[in-house]
């Protein structure tokens, strides 16, 4: 029922949505989230991103998060795909899609999965930052306190 995948190739959001919706007559609600590479972060122009992960742990962590979401809400299909490796500005990093008979459950589960993923799934972003002088440098993205704070609403 769950599709959980981590790969280096570009995400295909249309295909992910089609898999959630195809012949799914029981669920009237589908909530989705797509995170992609912004051109600006923490005051600097971003030229691209490389995503490192912990191969053995990543899928295990994502499966645990999705299982917890299923324990909280009545969900139909769950589809969670995360890209790793190098990627360009505007390319998709993560797709989360959740179907349910109920709109509130679909929204809540989609947001819950993202909030948990952001704080515990072993991914690390390294940005290529363009300085005003034209030089490029690599910079590890700092974790945000706000991501930790978002978790509290699910406690």
């Amino acid at each position: 029922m769950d599709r959980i995948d981590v790969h280096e190739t570009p995400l295909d959001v249309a295909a992910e949505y089609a898999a959630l919706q195809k012949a799914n007559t029981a669920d009237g609600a589908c909530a989705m989230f797509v995170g992609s590479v912004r051109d600006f972060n923490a005051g600097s122009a971003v030229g691209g991103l490389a995503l490192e992960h912990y191969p053995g742990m990543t899928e295990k962590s994502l499966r645990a998060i999705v299982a917890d979401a299923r324990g909280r809400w009545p969900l139909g299909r769950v589809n969670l795909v995360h890209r790793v490796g190098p990627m360009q500005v505007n390319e998709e990093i993560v797709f989360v899609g959740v179907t349910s008979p109920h709109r509130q459950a679909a929204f809540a589960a989609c947001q819950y999965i993202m909030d948990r993923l952001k704080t515990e799934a072993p991914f690390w972003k390294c940005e290529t930052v363009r300085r005003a002088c034209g030089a490029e440098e690599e910079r590890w993205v700092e974790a945000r306190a706000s991501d930790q704070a978002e978790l509290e609403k699910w406690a």
Partner: protein
Amino acid sequence: MIKVLFFARLRQQLGMGELRLEDFSGTVRSLCAVLCERYPQWREHLDDDAIRVAVNQELADSDASVAAGDEVAFFPPVTGG
């Protein structure tokens, strides 16, 4: 034998992604002390409250036990998504 992994910024700071330790048994905290004793220049990076730990690919705290055959990973706060 214990397998120890480091990721992301921490991997770069330590200049090492993986090491193997013979004959260790104790907690995550004592494993960290053993590593900092062996590599004193690691202390400022490894002995930091922000650093997260996973034992056998599950998040763990400093009191978690580590024994032969375990895989222990140290890494900075995650930033995926």
